[in-house]
């Protein structure tokens, strides 16, 4: 009897403790119950209920998002918008995605997010058919109005490219343009310009972040690959096709990188620098060229010396006489496969893609939204480098746009980046690099 009592007491203690824990952990479940009851409104064709939007806030800030969301709220007063935003939002929301309770709309950008991975995991809604029906204000079809078409996975569309980001080479305008040095137009002129700067200014002209070698890969090599082998080569390299990395075209380009290293054009400290440090060195005039995306001026806004002027060109890695090449990096907007309020999600996505918001995007962020027919030249609120770059990008004589099928998987990009930094430090030859890259591609294909 005594024993029975003892064990009961033990059981009671355990049970109470478990109960306390369950109660502590269950607040999320309560919310989802509420949500289910609220969402019922969407079934009758009306847009209502909760709409959860996840967006990463990085170099471009969040003011554009606030504007669009406020306007959407005004248009659809029955919708209760829940924002999940911030610089670490991808990490913070990960548990929601893992537990199949994702937000409705997601803007895929920043550390910890991977569109490729999300598609491979079946987390994004297939938008192929739906997007065909979307029209802009003037009746243009949205699918025909993208600067760069949506990335396709086996021919299907899972996300709509919202931000037209592009990597390119920034140069110190006071130093290069006004200092009497030539603004590079192709690889040879890039080398001669860097040589002149090295001799004249006594600095290593080129810098990038060695801690994240993908800045160089995406910023310098993708355009070089595009210029030399077009979309086809780019696709073969990104999907790791057999023999693509060891092809003569790629080896030729990697020899250019080797030459930059051997002739001392790359900052000797490159291996140690993270992206902020490399950008800081550039702003302080320790270097003249740096490959970064459009977001650089926004990201470094607080650290820009007063008289500093940015110049932007597509990375000049192409052979003599060829136009510049750019390979845009698109930051897409997508709807979750498991979205609880897909109607409102679709309404929001459709709402955001307008020329009016494209214009205000450039004003807010100094970058470009992925919609054609937006004239930035008349707008004084848009920074000068952007107007120039925009004009250049829209002139096919000067710049060719190449498209990659989708971002490179981290499983392939990581080993290639590792070998790339060795090449840039002079510890590996171009031949060794392409062998390493081919090996990485073989491993990637095998998975």
């Amino acid at each position, binding site marked *: 009897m005594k024993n029975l009592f*003892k064990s009961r007491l*033990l059981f009671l203690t355990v049970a109470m403790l478990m109960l306390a824990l369950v109660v502590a952990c269950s607040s999320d479940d309560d919310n989802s119950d509420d949500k289910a009851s609220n969402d019922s409104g969407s079934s009758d064709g009306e847009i209502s209920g909760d709409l959860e939007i996840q967006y990463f806030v990085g170099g471009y800030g969040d003011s554009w998002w606030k504007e669009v969301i406020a306007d959407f709220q005004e248009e659809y007063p029955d919708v209760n918008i829940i924002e999940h935003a911030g610089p670490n939002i991808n990490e913070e929301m990960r548990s929601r995605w*893992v537990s199949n309770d994702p937000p409705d709309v997601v803007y895929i950008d920043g550390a910890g997010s991977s569109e490729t*991975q999300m598609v491979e995991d079946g987390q994004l809604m297939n938008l192929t058919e739906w997007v065909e029906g979307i029209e802009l204000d003037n009746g243009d079809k949205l699918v025909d109005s993208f600067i760069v078409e949506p990335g396709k996975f086996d021919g299907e569309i899972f996300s709509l490219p919202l931000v037209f980001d592009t990597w390119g080479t920034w140069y110190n305008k006071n130093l290069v343009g006004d200092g009497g040095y030539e603004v590079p137009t192709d690889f040879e002129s890039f080398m001669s310009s860097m040589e002149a700067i090295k001799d004249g200014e006594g600095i290593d002209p080129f810098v990038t972040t060695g801690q994240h070698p993908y800045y160089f890969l995406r910023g310098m090599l993708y355009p070089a690959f595009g210029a030399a082998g077009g979309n086809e080569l780019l696709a073969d390299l990104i999907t790791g096709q057999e023999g693509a990395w060891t092809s003569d075209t790629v080896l030729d380009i990697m020899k250019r990188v080797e030459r930059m290293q051997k002739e001392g054009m790359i900052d000797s*400290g490159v*291996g*140690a620098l*993270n992206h902020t440090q490399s950008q800081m060195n550039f702003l302080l005039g320790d270097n003249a060229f740096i490959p970064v995306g459009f977001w650089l001026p926004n990201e470094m806004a607080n650290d820009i010396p007063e008289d500093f002027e940015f110049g932007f060109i597509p990375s000049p890695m192409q052979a003599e006489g060829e136009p510049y090449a750019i390979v845009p990096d698109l930051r897409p907007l997508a709807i979750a496969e498991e979205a609880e309020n897909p109607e409102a999600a679709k309404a929001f996505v459709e709402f955001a893609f307008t020329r009016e918001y494209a214009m205000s995007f450039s004003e807010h962020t100094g970058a470009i939204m992925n919609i054609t027919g937006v004239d930035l030249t008349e707008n004084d609120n848009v920074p000068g480098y952007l107007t120039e770059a925009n004009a250049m990008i829209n002139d096919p004589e000067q710049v060719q746009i190449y498209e990659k099928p989708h971002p490179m998987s981290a499983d392939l990009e990581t080993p290639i980046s*590792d070998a790339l930094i060795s090449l840039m430090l002079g510890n590996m030859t171009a031949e060794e690099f392409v062998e390493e890259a081919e090996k990485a591609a073989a491993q990637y294909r095998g998975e």
Partner: protein
Amino acid sequence: MVQSKKQKYMFLAFCLIPTFIMFAIFTLYPLFSGLYYSFFDWSGSSQNKEFVGLSNYIKLISDEIIPRTIIHDYFLVVTKVIGIMILAMFFAVALTQLRIKEAPFYRIVFFFPNIMSVVVIGILWTFIYNPSLGLINSGLEFLGLESWTRPWLGDENWALPSLVLPSIWAGIGLFMLMLMGGIANVSKSYYEAAEIDGANEWQQFWKVTLPLVWPQIKISVLYIVITTLNGSFIIVQVMTGGGPNNSTHVMGSYLYQQAFVQYNFGYGATIGVMILIISLITVLVLQFFMRRDKVEY
């Protein structure tokens, strides 16, 4: 009042059950779920996971980076144990035996890094090692040793040795205090006796101090080994991110890269299992080699 048996058990249950539940939730559950996930191909960011049996373990064996990470870990373990123990012992003896007036001040100064977060230490030293602005390169240039300057953390050969210095700097204080505690417990009469017998200070250190603080030394070494194997990834992650070209990756940072950068959570869990096994073996081997009867005079 004599406690009844029931009261005794109640009290024991009251003390043990909450602890056990916490232990189960925060230690046993992650341990076993790590083991469980190591048999799956899982990205860690969705619910799709596929059972793949031992294929993560096969991948682990054929992964060329894994042996390098293990070597890097042990390089840090060995250099840290030697560096920290020698310096901590030196400072402990100096501060207790040499009757320095400013001893309390030094005690605080040496302990100071221990109250700083490892992340802060990592960032601080990244600035010290900065190729153009850093203290070390500027110092070398000031001394006329330009040829010695290099991008310490950006050099494939020097990056790993460069991580040793901040790790030692950050570790000395705690172990110095532990050893000082040990030395303070040694009765002065032993030293007096040794002195009468004609032992010089060096002999006193080897024959009296060292044997009597052996338990503290043993615990310190074990602690350094375990924290290095489990925790060196923080300083690697902050200072180099494992680069350049994997030359500083330790097991923990490689696990992080696989699980959270390359989205191979299952494989990351497999590396975790490997770290557990290697740490256990290391500690057992150390226990064996460092067994030494407790000395009493």
